[in-house]
C-alpha cells in the first residue's frame, strides 16, 4: 500500500494537480510517526510511510492546509474520513482545495498498548498485519496484532470511507457489530457516587496540557472559550481541581453531536485518561433519544441536536425512557 500511495502522490505532484501531500513521516523507532507535509518526490521517497503504526488522524490539519495556495493531497483512513466530512459540514475545510485519497485500515498498532504489556526499551516495532514483532534493548518478542491494538481499533465502527476523491485498496463496510458502548454501559451501571468517584479519579490526573482539545477535529474554534480572557470561562491552570474536571465535561458537551468518535483524545492524553468515554456517552444518549446518528457519516444530514422535530424528547421523557442519568 505504501508504495502505491507514494506513486500516486508523486504523479499528482508531478502533474501539478496538487501542491503538497499530507501524510505520515518516519521517526526514530518505527512507532514514533509524525504527521508531515511533503512537497517533492525526494521527500516522499525518503520519509513517507504508511503501515499498521500510522495512528494519527490527519483530517484536522486540512483546516490550515486547505487555505494554502494550490490543492493539498491528504490520505485518510476510513475513520479519519468521518472527521473530515464533519469538518466539511462545519465549513472548516475548503473542499475544493483538497484531494482526498482514501486508504484502507484494518486497525492500528498502538505503542502505549504494547508498552502496557510490560515491554520496555522498544527500539523497533513492525507489523505484517497478523503479528507484531517488537525488538527491545532487552530482547525480541512477538504478539498478535489484536493484542497490540488500542480499544478504539478493536471496537472499530467503520472500515468504509464516507468521503474521498479516489480510493486505494479495497473499500470496507460499516462495522455494525462493534462493542464501543460496552464500557459506557458499565459506567452507566455504576451508582452516581461510584460514577462520580470514577471520573474524579480519572480526571484528577489531568495536567491541562490541552492535547485532547488541540488534536480534536471537533475542537476547531479559532479561539477556545478557555483561552479567551474575556469569555468569563478563561481557565489555564486550575485554581481548584474541580474546575479541571469541568473543562473536560464542558468540552464533551461542546462536541456532542459533532464528535465522530475518532478516539484521538484518548490516544494523545499523556495521562491515559479515557476521555473518549465522555464523548461516547453523548453519542449513545443521542442514539437512544433522537435515533441512531453517526456524526460525519453524511455531510448533508442535519445533526439531531441542531434540528427540532415534534418527535424530539422532552426532558421529562428522557427521564421516562429509562431515566439513565
Amino acid at each position, binding site marked *: 500500500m505504501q508504495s502505491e500511495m507514494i506513486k500516486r502522490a508523486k504523479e499528482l505532484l508531478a502533474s501539478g494537480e496538487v501542491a503538497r501531500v499530507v501524510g505520515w513521516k518516519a*521517526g*526514530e*523507532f518505527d*512507532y*514514533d*510517526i*509524525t*504527521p*508531515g*507535509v511533503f512537497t517533492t518526490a525526494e521527500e516522499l521517497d525518503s520519509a513517507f510511510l504508511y503501515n499498521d503504526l500510522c495512528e*494519527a488522524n490527519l483530517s484536522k*490539519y486540512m483546516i490550515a492546509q486547505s487555505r494554502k495556495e494550490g490543492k493539498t493531497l491528504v490520505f485518510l483512513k476510513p475513520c479519519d474520513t468521518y472527521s473530515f466530512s464533519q469538518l466539511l459540514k462545519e465549513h472548516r475545510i475548503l473542499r475544493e482545495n483538497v484531494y482526498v485519497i482514501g486508504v484502507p485500515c484494518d486497525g492500528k498498532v498502538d505503542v502505549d498498548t504494547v508498552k*502496557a504489556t510490560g515491554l*520496555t*526499551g*522498544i*527500539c523497533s516495532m513492525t507489523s505484517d498485519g497478523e503479528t507484531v514483532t517488537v525488538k*527491545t*534493548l*532487552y530482547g525480541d518478542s512477538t504478539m498478535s496484532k489484536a493484542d497490540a491494538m488500542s480499544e478504539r481499533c478493536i471496537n472499530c465502527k467503520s472500515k468504509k470511507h464516507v468521503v474521498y476523491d479516489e480510493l486505494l485498496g479495497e473499500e470496507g463496510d460499516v462495522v455494525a457489530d462493534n462493542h464501543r458502548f460496552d464500557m459506557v454501559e458499565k459506567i452507566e451501571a455504576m451508582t452516581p457516587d461510584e460514577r462520580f468517584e470514577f471520573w474524579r*479519579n*480519572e480526571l484528577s*490526573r489531568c*495536567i*491541562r*496540557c*490541552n*492535547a485532547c*482539545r*488541540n*488534536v480534536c477535529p471537533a475542537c476547531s474554534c479559532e479561539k477556545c472559550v478557555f*483561552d479567551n480572557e474575556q469569555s468569563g470561562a478563561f481557565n*489555564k*491552570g*486550575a*485554581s481548584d481541581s474541580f474546575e479541571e474536571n469541568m473543562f473536560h465535561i464542558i468540552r464533551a458537551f461542546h462536541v456532542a453531536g459533532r464528535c465522530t468518535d475518532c478516539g*484521538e483524545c484518548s*490516544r*494523545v492524553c*499523556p*495521562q*491515559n*485518561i479515557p476521555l473518549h468515554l465522555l464523548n461516547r456517552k453523548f453519542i449513545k444518549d443521542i442514539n437512544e433519544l433522537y435515533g441512531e446518528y453517526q456524526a460525519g457519516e453524511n455531510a448533508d444530514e442535519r445533526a439531531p441536536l441542531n434540528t427540532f422535530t415534534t418527535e424530539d424528547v422532552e426532558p421529562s421523557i428522557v427521564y421516562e425512557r429509562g431515566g439513565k442519568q
Partner: protein
Amino acid sequence: MFTLPVSKLNDLFAAVASTRKLYLPVDDEASGHAEYKVWHEGVTLSNALNTARSAKDFFFPQTENLVDFKMEGKTIEVIDTRTESEDFVVFGVRACDARSFDILDRVFLAEPVDSYYKNRREHGVIVTLACTRPEETCFCTVFGIDPTNPAGDVSGWIAGENLYLSANTEKGEAFLSSVSKLLAESDDEAVKAQQAEVKEILKKLPLGSLDLTPFKPENLLKLFDSKRWKDLSEACLGCGSCTFVCPTCQCYDIRDFDTGHGIKRYRCWDSCMYSDFTRMAHGNPRLTQVERFRQRFMHKLVYYPSNNEGIYSCVGCGRCLAKCPISMNIAKVIKALGEEA
C-alpha cells in the same frame, strides 16, 4: 555506604513516614503509569523506570497560591498566605530528575530568589535510585548524566536483594542517621558490579550518540534562522504535553481568581507552545507555531546554556518523546539541526 535488605524496604518507609511525609513512585492502576504518591502502610515502590509526571512538582507545583487580597471599597488588604513547608522526603528519584533540580535552582534561586520554591526546596530530602533498565527514549548520558550514579541528597541503588544508600549532602547525612537503626555498613562491590552491567546497556541506547556540538551560544543566530524549524513544527498541535511532562520546563503564569470572598492570586504552569503565551496588551511577538516551537528548543539548547555556563536545560528523561501526540521531540530537533550545522 549503607545497606538494607529489599525485604525490609517497608520498615524503612515506615520509619521515614513516622516523622515526615514520604513520597515515592507507585503504580497507578487507572493510568497504568507510575506516579509519586504519599506512602502509607500497604503502598509499594513501583518497578517502573520513571514516573509519568516529573519530580519538579514537589518544588514547582502545577498551581500554587501566591497571595490573597481582600478588597473593600477603595482599600486593598494584602494577605501573605505563605507558611513554612513541611519536611518531606522523595524516594526513588532518577538521575535525570535529580539533575533537573539543579536546572530549576538556577532559575528560581537566582536573584531575586523565589521564596515559594526555596521554601519547599529547603524542606525536601531527595533520595535517588540508580537506573537498571533504561528505555529506548533515554538519553541522559548525552547531557553528562550518569544514571548509574544519581545525585540527590542520598544516592541509592537496588542491586540484587539489597538497597544501598550513600549520602551526598548534610541533609542526606541527617536522613541516613535518622534511619541508621535499620542500616548496616557495607562495601560498594555490589553497586560497582551493577554499574558496570548497566553501562553496557547504556552503550546500546539508540539516542545515546546525539551530537550537541552545534548547540552553542556562538551559533545562536544561525540556529535561530534555520530553515528546518518550519517543517519540524509543521504538525505541532500547540498543546502543552511536552512542557508539562518536562522536568525542566518552568515557565509560569500568574492569575487572579475571585472566590467570592476575596481574590486568590495563584501561579500555574504555562507553556511556550500555547498560542497566547506571549500575548499581551501590545500584541504578540510570536504569532505562529513555528516561532513558539523554536522558542522551546532554542531555550533548552542555546539560550539556557548561554546564560548558565553551557548547561543544557534538558536532562534526556525521554518523557516528551513518549508523550508528544505527534511524536515530534527534542531528539528529532537535535538531529535535524545537527545535520544542517
